[in-house]
């Protein structure tokens, strides 16, 4: 898009001293900032449409500036709104003779830094679990699993020898009843009973109700 097209896209003051015919900036970003400067100059005079256009056009840039410092998406949006309100409160400090970019960038950056500082002071040692590496966040879960595994090993060790053997062959090694019978020297019936009793003991110990447990006991 040409400079002229960009400049025609919205209201601008009659003269822009830092842009002359002989020295038109080629950088589209600079052209855009000059357009924003013109919109703000118009807003200083009370032009609500120019102001609305300006705020809508600068919002993505404000979002980028906030994202450069803040990771949390909700916090970024708060920082953008904070920057918009600061632009509103400080709109009388903009000098149309000077570039708009540094004016807006300082406001957005300072508000983001202030937000981070306030959050740092307020939150103290708080950390968002979502922001932590997976290994750090999962430490309690790993510890719980280890405790449960240790309890299970102890419970199995306390079972009678025949039940322990049946459980190992049928459940852990996942052998068929025939294979387990051949390996252990127990009959298939005895294996079934031993496995069933072992599972029932463990379920009772860990407070888990098994299907048809009461019936099997009879």
């Amino acid at each position: 898009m040409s400079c002229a097209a960009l400049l025609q896209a919205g209201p601008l003051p009659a003269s822009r001293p830092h842009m002359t015919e002989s020295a038109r900036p080629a950088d589209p970003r600079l052209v855009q900032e000059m357009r924003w400067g013109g919109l703000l100059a118009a807003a200083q005079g009370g032009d609500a449409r120019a102001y609305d256009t300006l705020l809508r056009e600068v919002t993505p840039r404000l979002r980028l500036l906030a994202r450069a410092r803040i990771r949390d998406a909700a916090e970024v949006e708060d920082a953008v709104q904070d920057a918009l309100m600061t632009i509103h409160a400080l709109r009388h400090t903009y000098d149309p003779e000077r570039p708009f970019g540094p004016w807006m960038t300082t406001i957005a950056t300072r508000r983001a830094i202030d937000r981070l500082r306030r959050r740092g002071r307020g939150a103290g040692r708080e950390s968002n679990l979502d922001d932590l590496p997976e290994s750090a966040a999962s430490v309690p879960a790993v510890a719980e699993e280890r405790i449960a595994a240790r309890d299970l090993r102890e419970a199995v060790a306390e079972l009678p020898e025949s039940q322990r053997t049946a459980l190992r062959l049928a459940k852990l090694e996942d052998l068929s009843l025939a294979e387990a019978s051949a390996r252990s020297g127990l009959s298939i019936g005895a294996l079934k009973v031993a496995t069933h009793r072992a599972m029932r003991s463990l379920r009772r110990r860990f407070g888990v109700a098994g299907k048809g447990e009461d019936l099997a006991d009879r």
Partner: protein
Amino acid sequence: MQTDELIRRLSQDVAPVRRVTPPMRAALGWLALAAAVIAAGVLISGLRHDLEHRLMLMHEQVNLLAALATGAAAAVAAFHLALPDRSDRWALLPLPFAIFWISGLGWGCIAEFIERGWPALGISFACMRFIIGFGVPLTLGMLWMTRHAARIRPGPVTWLAGLAAAAVASVGLSLVHHLEAAAMVLIWHGGSVLVVMALSRLWGARALRAMAA
């Protein structure tokens, strides 16, 4: 509130605003005000009896000019830093003048020590009263003029305001109060300037926010 809704509300009834006074003009305005206030204080207190003689001394002239330059540079820097689009490096502007001023006072102490040995040090709360009494209201005056800095650079603007006001008050004090020893000048003038700067740094940001609200 959604960002779109916020933009709609902000732009709905945007009132025309008067642009802030350019920083150099604002600094000159504040310096003129400070000079008038200090001059009134000097007239009320009465000029020191040996003023004519002291003003003839080169090192006295240099010290006075250095203090004045420090105050003026700090004022210019504060008004520039209060605007979002100015460089943070403006904060360094009064530094060479302040160093020159303090080192001049320090040099006076050394010369005095070589000539007369340990100077007779004393307490001069009158000096402190003068500098704090004029420095704090002048600081508040500058904070009022730079209250738009509350959301941008409250820290540097407040301590520069304190430095500007205290340095100008120190110039006024030099016309009023007689201190025999250079070490006394360094301790009581320099100490009082630091007290005003510390007060400004402690409560200035809060004052700026309250004024900007």
